[in-house]
């Protein structure tokens, strides 16, 4: 179903043409000297595309709804901050620490995933949510990590515009890699195995799919990118606090974004993250904040009830029906 819609040769050729143009356009955007607000706004879009796409590896393809992915984001942020602090590095060198931070997030995902991935459905969702709370509380209570005061990072000695542009480009690069990985996994044998696990784990195993190993690999991979993103975010903010980088709302948002777009394909989370971030920002800007929340919530209800497979599949079914 998924491969039918997105991997036919025609649309492939279309993607091959459009994607580089879009990427170059996005990379050049800050140089058209837009207001700083827009650079930050698009940075946020990238961040959410990255988070929901990486969540999709385990949540969408394998059907293991992790509600604790923000923990990996927070772990990445703190790991990067500590890396910079311990070696008292400059911001640009601290940024190098985001890669080991991502690896630490993956390592923790393996340790946590080993017992947790034996649980399924709502049990897995709940235990990952608990994991997010527990990691937030742990960080809050560890003096060495700044505790409830948070951690300060060094700031770059450049103008706001240049600072924002640098982080914009970094996040664009990370997001592109994340989406590329999600795309490649979707077409690979690995992805086929994950989808089989989502449909029926026992049968998948009798078809020689090594479910435990596949799940833990997907979980570790889906923790890596949020870890790196958390590191970049820490340098971007230059101040991190457990309530900010372990915010469970962020966890829930990335799940909703992926489901909103359609969690069975690589493009679903991208569409979901872009559209919801834009809608959310538009609502908060033009409507009162409380009203914005209400509209936002109603939107989710409509999508979950009427388009359980996401907006993409809903609309592609529509057009198919018209074609027929």
């Amino acid at each position, binding site marked *: *179903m998924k*491969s*039918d819609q997105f991997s036919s040769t025609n649309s492939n050729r279309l993607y091959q043409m459009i994607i580089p143009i879009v990427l170059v356009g996005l990379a050049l955007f800050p140089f058209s000297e837009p207001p700083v607000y827009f650079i930050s706004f698009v940075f946020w879009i990238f961040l959410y595309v990255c988070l929901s796409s990486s969540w999709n590896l385990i949540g969408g393809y394998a059907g293991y709804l992790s509600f604790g992915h923000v923990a990996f984001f927070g772990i990445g942020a703190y790991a990067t901050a500590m890396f910079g602090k311990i070696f008292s590095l400059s911001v640009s060198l601290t940024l190098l620490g985001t890669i080991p931070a991502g690896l630490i997030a993956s390592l923790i995902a393996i340790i946590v995933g080993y017992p947790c991935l034996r649980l399924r459905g709502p049990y897995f969702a709940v235990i990952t949510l608990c994991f997010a709370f527990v990691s937030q509380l742990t960080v809050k209570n560890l003096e060495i990590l700044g505790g409830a005061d948070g951690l300060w990072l060094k700031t770059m000695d450049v103008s706001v515009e240049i600072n924002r542009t640098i982080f914009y480009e970094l996040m664009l690069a990370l997001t592109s890699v994340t989406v590329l990985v999600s795309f490649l996994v979707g077409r690979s*044998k690995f992805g*086929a*195995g994950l*989808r*089989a696990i989502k*449909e*029926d784990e*026992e*049968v*998948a*195993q*009798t*078809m*020689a*799919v*090594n*479910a*435990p190993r596949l799940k833990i690999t997907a979980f570790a991979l889906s923790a890596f990118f949020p870890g790196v993103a958390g590191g970049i975010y820490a340098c971007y903010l230059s101040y991190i606090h457990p309530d900010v980088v372990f915010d469970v709302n962020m966890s829930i948002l990335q799940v909703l974004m992926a489901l909103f777009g359609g969690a*069975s394909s690589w493009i679903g989370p991208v569409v979901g993250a872009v559209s919801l971030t834009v809608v959310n920002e538009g609502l908060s800007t033009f409507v009162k904040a409380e009203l914005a929340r209400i509209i936002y919530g109603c939107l989710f209800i409509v999508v979950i009830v009427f388009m359980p497979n996401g907006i993409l599949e809903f609309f592609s079914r529509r057009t198919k029906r018209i074609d027929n």
Partner: protein
Amino acid sequence: MLEIKGISVSYQQHRALTDVSMVVEKNDFVALIGSNGAGKSTLINAVSGLNKIDLGSIVFEEKIISNLAPDYVSSLGVIQVPEGRKLFPQMTVEENLEIGAYLPEPRKMYSRNLGKMFELFPRLKERRRQRSGSLSGGEQQMLAIARALMAQPKLLMLDEPSLGLAPIVTLEIFKILQELNQTGLSILLVSQEVLQSLNISKRGYLLENGGINLSGNSSDLLTDPRVKESYLGL
């Protein structure tokens, strides 16, 4: 090829199989018959590694496979067609077959085997891009068998392949199984269709209340008074 040596299986307190032994030779076609709740599926699932056994052992090609992970057992070439088909309903026919060819060896032969399957089951070819959940019962069973065959099994185990199918479709499927056996595939068939499965198989085992009560050549079993009375209604 497959040797089951005195295994016992329990579900919590409840003992489902007691001291069951049976053998499937190379190129054999064995029918495992018995009524509801006799333990037929339990036996097959124990071979596949889905059920853990308490006692005894299961040996496949000189390797002990009892209580090993199901994906390891299937990687040795012991492939099950589960009861009730258990397809991946959201996937297309072709995607289901792709999962069947998950291991490296079968994957290399994917296109060749796919062609073979479409030859064997022409209706699957017509429906290759259709969601497998939307197929008819007979087509789903064919797909389940084809998916298992894509894994290039050495031993194919089928759990009630005739469940819920029209007699004519059952006949078609059993005929295909017989053909497959003639090309060298070893088959273990679990079925309640006692007459038909004994007709196409070479040897048979009768499972009753968690134990093997009778075994022998299928043709002999067909004339055995106990089978005749209890299962054939003669």
